[in-house]
């Protein structure tokens, strides 16, 4: 029995053969990109020592590349890029706001605790 008071959004996701071909091309492109990024990360990690002066830049490069990879996974693989803008915002914004604050407050506190410990000679 068809009900006309419900919208079956699940059916909206269908697409044609040609469109599918395009999508697959995009998927393989992103795959290549993620693989290359991972390879760069491993090469940097293996060849640049943590004791070197370069390490601080390498560390931030890692974090930037990680966020980039995460962005591609969320937006392309998880199709969040294709959803309504407000659905995207409802999912990403509260999460990002909360986590950025948590990272800030936890690491600030951690450094203070570390200082306190080294002060008492532990």
């Amino acid at each position: 029995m068809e009900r006309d008071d419900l919208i079956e959004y699940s059916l909206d996701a269908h697409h044609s053969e040609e469109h599918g071909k395009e999508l697959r091309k995009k998927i393989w492109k992103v795959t290549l990109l993620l693989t290359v990024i991972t390879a760069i990360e491993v090469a940097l990690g293996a060849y640049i020592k943590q004791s070197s002066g370069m390490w601080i830049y390498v560390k931030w490069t890692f974090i930037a590349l990680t966020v980039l990879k995460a962005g591609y996974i969320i937006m392309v693989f998880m199709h969040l890029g294709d959803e309504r803008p407000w659905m995207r915002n409802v999912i990403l914004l509260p999460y990002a706001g909360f986590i950025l604050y948590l990272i800030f407050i936890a690491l600030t506190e951690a450094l203070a605790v570390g200082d306190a410990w080294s002060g008492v000679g532990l």
Partner: protein
Amino acid sequence: MAANTAELDFKTLWGGKESPFQTSYGKLMMWFFLVSDALTFSGLLVAYGFVRHNTQESWPIGEETFNSLPFLGHGYPLIYVALMTFILIVSSVTMVLAVEAGHRMDKKGVIQWMLATIIGGFFFLASQVWEWSHFIHGSQFGRIELMDGSEANVSGHFGELKNFTVLEGGTHHKKGDVITSDLMHTFQHAAKEGHIHEGGIIHLHDGSIAQVNKEHDHHLELIIKLINPDSKRNIGDKIEGKEAEKLYYASLYSGTPKVTYGAPWFEDGEHWLPTKNEYGPQQYAHFFFFITGFHGFHVFSGVLINILIFIGVIKGTYHKRGHYEMVEKTGLYWHFVDLVWVFVFTFFYLV
């Protein structure tokens, strides 16, 4: 007032028919679940960051700690975990291809790509089993406390144990016996308790004393990880060759417990050993095993859910329904597992 309400139509007021997000209930709920799960993982990783930032001890270095490959030994920094990451990325790709096939109602395509995803999931889990057992057992040299009180991680090629020749009999072994089984385990157990002495004399559990016959070590290197305030060494100092060998065996033969292997859980099956770990501070091991374990549990449940959906695909349940949204939903979960791994990879293995 009445005139005002009459002007409002469906475009302005939500009448309960059209969803603001234009997405199905199930998919939206999957997203909400993923956000909450992401909060859990973020909490764990931030807690790890907290501990790492306030620790005074030197933290394990990724490329030194994760440098082994099955069958090939040491000297391959980050290669194994890169392989694990690649496996997970590829299985994520096969999943997104299954979702794409579902959008074209291509049942055969969905079956093919989901099967590949499930196989990829099993490969990842198996890789993690190897990695865990590798870290629980530790390296053949272990972490050594040198005679001046500083501690060092040891890398290199451990000379093969040939046999133990019994010099003095005990309750089990007789003089002249040649022991050839369980050598490494016996050796490490004795080393941990300080029961190996000058010249490779080992005191066994049954009271017998034996000579260790062992091939020569190669490329021995000590990396100082912890210093005694009185010692002249610095954290990160490297000692190689003959000098390294001399220092290592001087400690090993000192008659007191100086060496730690792997990430011990229980000693003698009853005593909790919370203080020592070959790879660095004990908190490091706690977080490593908990977070990779929690992630591994997600991979495991993801594989199970994928198998359930896979059965549904083969039976044609979703084809009859007219859409493959179930594949899309399990796909979301599977991609999320990959997403978490991207962060675990960075914060445990790289940074």
